[in-house]
């Protein structure tokens, strides 16, 4: 069966976009098109069809992020509150809140900690020795649980190093790795929009993370959307000395989180 032409793809895109101007991620639109047509729509074919619509002024796009398109109808106000310039500037500090939401939501849920256990997330980006090199993860997540029959408790500490679009280099991987001096699992979190030129580094960064047992979480496009977080690699547990972990937690956890973890460890 012949594949749909750019003109047909463009028409389908217009039909699929919400009429109120709500933007749709390129990743999602490509899946919607593939499902509708029953054929794989490659990034190249999609980009071609989108270019046709952009040239005609039928759709708008969120530049910088490069990830979303919306129906551009005269007289219909756009549903976005931020201007494209604002959205394109996803600095680490702007990404922090969204990452915190993801860690406290789906990531935590995925760990499947029993009700009797505890799991806390702490923003540690501004804590720690000012001269200490690579000793300040952006977030840490601490989980504690007791076993049903076995004595003792299991405590796992995850550290997260957040990088904006242009910030992820091999040094970022080593930074995440260095943080496992004090934690069991190191993660690199990278905001990498779909059409970003930085995508060219993805394979290298993935391989570096894999080699060092560092987890890699990619944030596609809009960090507001929880669906845009993808775990590309799971980290490998490091045999970090309990004394190093203990000292680290003592300095980083706030009192409430300390109490929660202690209660879970003591089975209270």
């Amino acid at each position: 069966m012949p594949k749909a032409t750019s003109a047909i793809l463009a028409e389908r895109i217009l039909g699929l976009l919400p009429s109120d101007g709500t933007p749709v991620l390129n990743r999602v639109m490509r899946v919607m098109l593939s499902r509708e047509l029953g054929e794989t729509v490659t990034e190249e074919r999609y980009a071609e069809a989108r270019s046709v619509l952009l040239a005609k002024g039928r759709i708008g796009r969120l530049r910088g992020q490069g990830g979303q398109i919306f129906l551009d109808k005269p007289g219909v106000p756009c549903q976005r509150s931020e201007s494209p310039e604002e959205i394109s500037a996803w600095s680490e500090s702007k990404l922090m809140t969204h990452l915190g939401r993801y860690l406290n939501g789906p990531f935590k849920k995925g760990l499947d900690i029993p009700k009797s256990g505890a799991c806390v997330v702490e923003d540690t980006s501004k804590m720690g020795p000012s001269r200490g090199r690579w000793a300040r993860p952006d977030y840490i997540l601490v989980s504690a649980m007791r076993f049903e029959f076995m004595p003792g408790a299991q405590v796992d500490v995850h550290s997260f190093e957040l990088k904006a679009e242009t910030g992820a280099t091999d040094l970022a991987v080593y930074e995440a790795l260095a943080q496992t001096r004090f934690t069991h699992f190191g993660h690199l979190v990278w905001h990498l929009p779909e059409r970003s030129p930085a995508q060219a580094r993805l394979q290298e960064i993935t391989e570096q993370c894999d080699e060092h047992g560092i987890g890699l979480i990619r944030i596609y496009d809009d960090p507001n959307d929880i669906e845009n977080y993808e775990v590309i690699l799971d980290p490998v547990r490091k045999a970090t000395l309990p004394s190093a972990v203990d000292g680290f937690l003592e300095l980083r956890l706030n009192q409430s989180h300390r109490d929660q973890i202690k209660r879970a460890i003591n089975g209270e």
Partner: protein
Amino acid sequence: MSGKVIAVANMKGGVGKTATVVGLAETLAASGRTVLVIDLDAQANASICIAGDAMLTDLIRRQCTFESFLNDFLHKRSTISFDNCIRSNVSNVTHLGNQLPLSLLASGPALRDLELKLVYVLTRKRMSWEQIVEALWGLMKIQLQRSRKSFDLVVIDCAPGISILTEVSIRLADLIIVPTIPDFLSTFGLEAFCINMWERGLNGKTKAPKHLPHVLATRCRQINIHRDTIGVLREEAKGAKAPFRMFATTIPETIAIADALGKIEKYPPFSSKWTPAVVTILTDLATEIQGTLNGN
């Protein structure tokens, strides 16, 4: 490509057949394999979980389902082809930015009635149960021989109980997976079911299945009865004359799986849909299955 066929079957309902089919199919697809899911359960749960409500409604309306094909064949109309009922690019899930390479041969609620009608019509023509199964198996084999070339794996979701379509699926399969909750009632009759399936495979013109049925412990909880039952099943599976083998991987009872199956209206990345913990388990299972199919 000539896709290996995996049938997921059990007499008992509610043991996690559909969850196994959907989770396994998406995991295999995320690892780059092209996968076809054939839904032979009239409840159409696998079809809904993979294609979503709206697309399934459309497929039923346009008569692009297995029962439409079967009905057409029964009436000797030859207007609906098997291949045309296979819907490609059905998945709403992405992995590394791309849609999962998943296709679906959906079923609908009319399948159960059609199966009964089939038995009624053919027994009136003095065909025995075995002959009906044989005939349907022949039909499916010819259709699948053509279609499976486009896929690395074909996963069949069988309806609970023993039906003609389940028997046909078992005969077609390179590997039969029997999901089972590791408790007394769920495993009651498991051995008989496995022996029965194995013997059915030996009937007629078919060769003996290459692999014994493989039991997969599902919906496992950290309770004694589950741990003990898994232990007993593992011991049984080790025997030289064991009627089944057992996967090392077990599927836990977790809310993440129930949540994942309900994500039909969104477009989640694969690892977000299943959560990292479940993805690890499903990947282990997929690796074991590949190993079994490769004869390791």
